[in-house]
């Protein structure tokens, strides 16, 4: 972890957009690969203890990545990413939506725009996510927390609130 690297996260609720900027201490071609090659993506996109498993990835315009976020209990949450535009090592765009295990998409989805630039050996990635509904963004959170875990947390929260007299 390097705390000197830029990280900016803003949400424009009116435009239903999320803007993320992050700097990485690596050359552009390597960072580009980390975002566009399945074997590298699977190493970092899942928030631990979840793991990412790419069933197939065809990185070309019109191509798709079909992958699952897998919980420690083995529960799979499938999603499809369809590449809509690619300018090598500069920019790519995709449409992302959740899916079932048979590749049937669950709409609505979100539109992602990634821009890459390098300066002094550091690479900046700018991500814009457009969501048709803000409510949908909540599903991304759910990937990090199973229903059972959430329920037990609510119970614990209530218990703690009761104990502290709030």
């Amino acid at each position: 972890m390097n705390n000197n690297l830029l990280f900016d996260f803003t949400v424009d609720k009116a435009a239903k957009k999320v803007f993320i900027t992050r700097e990485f201490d690596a050359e552009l071609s390597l960072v580009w690969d980390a975002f566009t090659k399945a074997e590298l993506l699977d190493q970092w996109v899942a928030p631990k203890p979840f793991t990412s498993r790419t069933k197939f990835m065809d990185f070309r315009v019109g191509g798709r990545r079909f992958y699952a976020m897998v919980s420690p209990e083995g529960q799979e949450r499938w999603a499809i990413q369809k590449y809509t535009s690619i300018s090598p090592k500069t920019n790519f765009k995709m449409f992302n939506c959740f899916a079932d295990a048979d590749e049937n998409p669950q709409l609505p989805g979100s539109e992602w725009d990634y821009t890459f630039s390098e300066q002094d050996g550091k690479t900046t990635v700018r991500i814009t996510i457009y969501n048709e509904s803000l409510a949908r963004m909540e599903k991304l959170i759910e990937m990090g927390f199973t229903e059972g875990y959430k329920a037990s947390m609510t119970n614990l929260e209530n218990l703690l609130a009761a104990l502290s007299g709030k």
Partner: protein
Amino acid sequence: MQPIGFVFKNIIIMRRDIFQAVADPTRRAIISLIALQAMTPNAIADNFHITRQSVSKHLRILTECELIKPEQQGREIYYSLEIKKMKEIDKWLEQFRKIWETQFNQLDNVLATIKKQKK
């Protein structure tokens, strides 16, 4: 109990509809209006070029999400903002930000490992 309470306080369990409530521009405008002072449905409707009926519908949804609260004062109902609920939205966004932070830290490690292998 204090340390445990501190750890789990950050995990926010939320009803889906809060975000539907703020995703609508008219409802956001209503929230901004009554953030300044409690208002009656008539007074709120005066600020919009939409029907009273449609204002009532928005007020109903906001009330159901517990973002606003109706209060009877004499013959009139005044709606006021539930500041606590609004704060939950910010906390939720903070969680979203944290997930990204975690992901990117993982990517930092992957990049560092690859760089080492190349040397």
